[in-house]
C-alpha cells in the first residue's frame, strides 16, 4: 500500500469515528425492526408509528433522558424475512443502539434476538407471540404481547363454550407464527373433545383461496379457524368465504386485529370472531397514546399499542438505569411496574409480560369485546 493511499484511508476512518462520536454525544439511539416493505408492510409500519409516538410522548411527559438532547430512532426493514432480520440486527449493532423494539414476525424475532443477544442489546418484541421467542432463555429478550400457548387454549375454550362448536376446519399460512398457533389450537380443540376435520395450509401472499374454501364448504364445519398472518389475507378469505356461501362461523387471531380488516372485507367481516389481548381504551395512558397517534397515523392498529408500551418501558428503564449498560437496563426493566396503554406492564423472569386473551367480535365495523375466559360473555 502506498503512503498516499494509507493516509487517505486513515483520514477517512478518523472522519467516520469523529462523526459517530459527535452524534452519540447528543442523541440516544434506539432501533426498531419490523417489515416496512413486502406483504406485512402495513403491520410493520404500525409498529414503527407506535415507537415514534412513544418517543414523542416520553419526551413530552418525562422530559427525555438526562444527558441526551434527543432520542433518535433507527427504523429497520426486515421484510418479515429471517435473513433480512439478522442483517438488520447487525446494522443496529453497528449503529450502537441501546435497545431494539421488534420484530413483527416470530420467524424474524427468533434469529435476530440471537444476534442482538451476543452484542448484549435489549430487545422487546411488541408482536411476536410464538413461544420460542422467550422460551430459549435469552437474557435480553423481552415480550410485550401475549404468547400463543396462552392464545390457543383461550381460542379453543371460546369455540367450545361460547360457540358450542363440535367440528372445526383449520387453515394456516405456514409462517412460524400462524402454523405454531394453528397447531396449538388443533391440539387444544382435540383435548376439549372437538373434531378437527382438516388442518390445511395456504401460502403467504396468496390471493385466491377458492380451492381450499371449496373444501371447507364440502366439509361444512361449525368453525372455520383462519390462522393467517396479517389482516390482508384474512380479509380476502372472509370475502371469498361469504361469496361462496360458507355458513361456518369464522374465528381468527391477533394478527388480524387491524381496523383495515373491516375496511377491506366490509360486510364479510361482520360476525367474525378473533382472540386478542384485552386493552382498556378508557385509561389515561391509552388516551395519551391515542391523542398523539390518531391525528398523525390514523386508526390504532394491532401492534401499535404494544410497540408504544415496549418503547415506553425501554425508555423508562434506560432513564432509571442512568446509563446505557445493558445489565443495568435489564435490571431496571425487571423492576418496572406501571400502567401502559395496552395493559399493566410487569415483566416476568423469562421476559414475558403475561397474556390477557379475550374474544372480540366484529359488530358494525368495530372490534367489540365479546367473551372472557373466566367470566364468559361480556355485556
Amino acid at each position, binding site marked *: 500500500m502506498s503512503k498516499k493511499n494509507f493516509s487517505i484511508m486513515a483520514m477517512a476512518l478518523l472522519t467516520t469515528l469523529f462523526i459517530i462520536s459527535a452524534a452519540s454525544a447528543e442523541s440516544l439511539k434506539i432501533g426498531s425492526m419490523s417489515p416496512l416493505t413486502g406483504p406485512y408492510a402495513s403491520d410493520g409500519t404500525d409498529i414503527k408509528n407506535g415507537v415514534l409516538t412513544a418517543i414523542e410522548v416520553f419526551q413530552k411527559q418525562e422530559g427525555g433522558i438526562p444527558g441526551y438532547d434527543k432520542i433518535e430512532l433507527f427504523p429497520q426493514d426486515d421484510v418479515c424475512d429471517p435473513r433480512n432480520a439478522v442483517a438488520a440486527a447487525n446494522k443496529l449493532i453497528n449503529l450502537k443502539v441501546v435497545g431494539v423494539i421488534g420484530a413483527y414476525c416470530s420467524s424474524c424475532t427468533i434469529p435476530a434476538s440471537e444476534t442482538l443477544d451476543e452484542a448484549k442489546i435489549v430487545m422487546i418484541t411488541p408482536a411476536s407471540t410464538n413461544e420460542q421467542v422467550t422460551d430459549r432463555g435469552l437474557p435480553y429478550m423481552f415480550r410485550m404481547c401475549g404468547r400463543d400457548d396462552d392464545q390457543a387454549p383461550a381460542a379453543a375454550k371460546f369455540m367450545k363454550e361460547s360457540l358450542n362448536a363440535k367440528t372445526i376446519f383449520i387453515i394456516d399460512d405456514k409462517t412460524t407464527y400462524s402454523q405454531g398457533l394453528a397447531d396449538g389450537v388443533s391440539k387444544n380443540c382435540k383435548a376439549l373433545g372437538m373434531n378437527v376435520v382438516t388442518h390445511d*395450509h395456504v*401460502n403467504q*401472499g396468496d390471493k*385466491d383461496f377458492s380451492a381450499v374454501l371449496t373444501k371447507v364448504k*364440502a366439509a361444512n364445519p361449525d368453525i372455520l379457524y383462519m390462522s393467517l398472518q396479517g389482516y390482508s389475507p384474512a380479509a380476502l378469505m372472509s370475502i371469498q368465504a361469504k361469496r361462496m356461501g360458507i355458513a361456518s362461523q369464522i374465528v381468527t387471531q391477533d394478527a388480524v386485529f387491524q381496523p383495515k380488516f373491516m375496511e377491506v372485507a366490509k360486510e364479510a367481516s361482520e360476525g367474525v370472531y378473533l382472540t386478542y389481548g384485552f386493552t382498556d381504551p378508557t385509561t389515561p395512558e391509552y388516551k395519551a397514546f391515542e391523542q398523539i397517534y390518531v391525528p398523525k397515523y390514523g386508526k390504532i392498529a394491532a401492534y401499535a399499542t404494544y410497540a408504544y408500551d415496549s418503547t415506553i418501558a425501554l425508555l423508562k428503564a434506560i432513564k432509571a438505569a442512568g446509563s446505557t449498560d445493558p445489565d443495568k437496563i435489564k435490571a431496571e426493566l425487571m423492576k418496572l411496574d406501571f400502567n401502559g396503554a395496552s395493559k399493566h406492564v410487569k415483566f416476568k423472569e423469562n421476559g414475558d409480560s403475561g397474556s390477557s386473551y379475550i374474544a372480540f367480535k366484529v359488530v358494525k365495523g368495530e372490534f367489540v369485546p365479546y367473551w372472557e375466559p373466566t367470566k364468559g360473555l361480556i355485556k
Partner: protein
Amino acid sequence: MDSFIQQLINGITLGGIYALIALGYTMVYGVIQLINFAHGEFFAAGGYVGVIFLSFFTGLGYMETHPIFCLTASFALAMMYCAYLAIGVEKIAYKPLRKEARLAALLSALGVSIFLSNGLMLTQGVYDKAYPSELFQGGFSFGIITIGYLQVLIVCLTGALLVALNLLVFKTKIGMAMRATAQDKTMSALVAIGSNKIISLTFGIGAGLAAAAGIMVGLYYGSVRYDMGFLPGIKAFSAAVLGGIGNITGAMLGGLIIGMVEIFGAGYISGEYKDVFAFIILIGVLYFKPTGIMGENIDDTRV
C-alpha cells in the same frame, strides 16, 4: 363431483386472469425478444387506477344509477393509462438499449419493475385499498355449486378480450404489421412498416390487457395492494413459457393450465404445495418440449 365442478369454475376464473397477463409477456417477447419483467406492475397499476375511478364514481352516486357505464369507463381509463405507462416505460427504459446485448434490457426491466412497485407503495401507501364492494355480489347457486356473478363477468370479459385480440392480430392490417415486425424488423421496415410504432403498440396492448386483469382481480378479491403484481407476474410468465413464449394462443392455453393445476392441486392434494404443482407441470413440459406447448415454429409465427 359437485366440488369438482366448483373447482373447475374456480380454475377457469383464475386461469383466465393469468392468461390475460401472460399475453403481455408473450406479445412483447414475440416482437423484441425481451422478457418484460415490469409487466406485473402494469397489472397492479391497472388495479389501482380501477379502484380510484370506481371509488370516485361510487362517491358521486353514479354507480347505482349507471353501473355499466361506470364499469366500462373505469376499464377503459385504466387500460388506456396502463397502455401509455407501458409505452413510456418502453421509450425510456428499453428503446435506448435495443441495440445492446439482451441482458442489458432484461436488467433494465427488473429495475423498472422495482421502481414501479415502490412508486406504487410510496404514492398509494402500504395498506390494502378496498374496492367498492356493492358491485355484483351474490351469484347463481346450484346445490353446493356457487358461480359468482363476478366469476361470470370475468370469464366473459376475458373471453371477449381474447377474441378481440385474436381478430386484431390475425385479421387486421395492424396485426399483419405486428406479425411482420416480429418476423423481421429490417424487412418490414423496407415495406414501410414503422417498427417503433408497432413496438409501442404491442407494449400498449399487452399492458392494457394486464390492466383489465388488474381491475378484475380487484373486483373479484375485493382489494388491491402495491405488491400484488409480483406473484401473478411470475405465474403469468410461467404460463407464457409453458404455452410457448411468443405464441398468443399458447399464452392463453398456458394461463388456463396454470390456473387449473393450481386450483386442483390445492383442492385435491394439498394447499401448501399448489405452486409446486404448477411449476412441476412447467418443468415437465419444457423437458420434453423446450419451446413450450404451442411454440413449434418459433421463428415464423410469433407476434
